[in-house]
């Protein structure tokens, strides 16, 4: 497993842990009302689980498992891969907290833009690696 995959998969696992925590807090609130504000965690929960966990895990596994090149750089452009990792996490944090806290819509927009750029970097990284094995 490459260092990029280790960072991406471990970050995805962290988001999964946070996603479970936020989900548990909201479910607790439904069963044992403590603070109605807990239900406002929903957009953060969805952002963490769908993009922070599921999408990021898929990216991390793809960085690791897609066919490599026979010559260096064997894993393709790692710069694009790291850019995708950084942009995705900036995006998830901005979009998630922006929706949760209801702060300036610009933060949410910035988050979505960063996520879009992350996906673009990921596609550019992965595209040439989707090929027959070897070569």
């Amino acid at each position, binding site marked *: *497993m490459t260092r990029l995959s280790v960072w991406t998969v471990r970050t995805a*696992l962290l988001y*999964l842990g946070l996603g*479970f925590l936020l989900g*548990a807090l909201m*479910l607790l609130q439904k*069963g044992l009302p403590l603070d109605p504000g807990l239900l406002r965690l929903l957009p953060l929960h969805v952002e963490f689980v769908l993009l922070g966990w599921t999408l990021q895990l898929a990216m991390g596994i793809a960085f690791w498992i897609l066919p490599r090149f026979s010559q260096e750089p064997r894993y393709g452009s790692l710069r694009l891969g790291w850019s995708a990792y950084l942009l995705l996490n900036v995006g998830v944090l901005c979009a998630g907290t922006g929706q949760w806290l209801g702060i300036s819509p610009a933060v949410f927009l910035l988050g979505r833009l960063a996520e879009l750029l992350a996906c673009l970097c990921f596609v550019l990284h992965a595209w040439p690696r989707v090929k027959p094995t070897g070569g």
Partner: protein
Amino acid sequence: MPRLTRYFIKTALLYLALALVLGLLLAARAAFDLPAEFAAFSPVFFHVLMVGWAAQLIFGMLFWMLPKYSKEQPRGNEPLAWSAYILINVGLVLRIIGEPMNTVQAEWNLGWLLVVSAVLQLIGGWAFILTAWSRVKER
């Protein structure tokens, strides 16, 4: 394929079928003007799909395919991973039963089912993360 992976994946497939049935019920409610209580299944539908199907399928595949922890313990802490499987599934079943009933029959005071479900799923999820974490490593 390790036994726990088979359990995770086959259980995930069962949840996929259940999720599609729930999705059908929710769509039927809108189409045939069925009682509003059916809407209580909406959060259950999403969680059967995302926890029961997607997360468990991923957990099964990760348990199988992540780099080996060591020669002696290739899958890492297996009892912890089994605990994750049991806790997540017991927790999810409690939610499937408890959430619609708590909404439709609030006077039955079944909120405790949701509290237990939340705690079990949280511990189960974190248990799986702990087992996977040590296997996510550079060669």
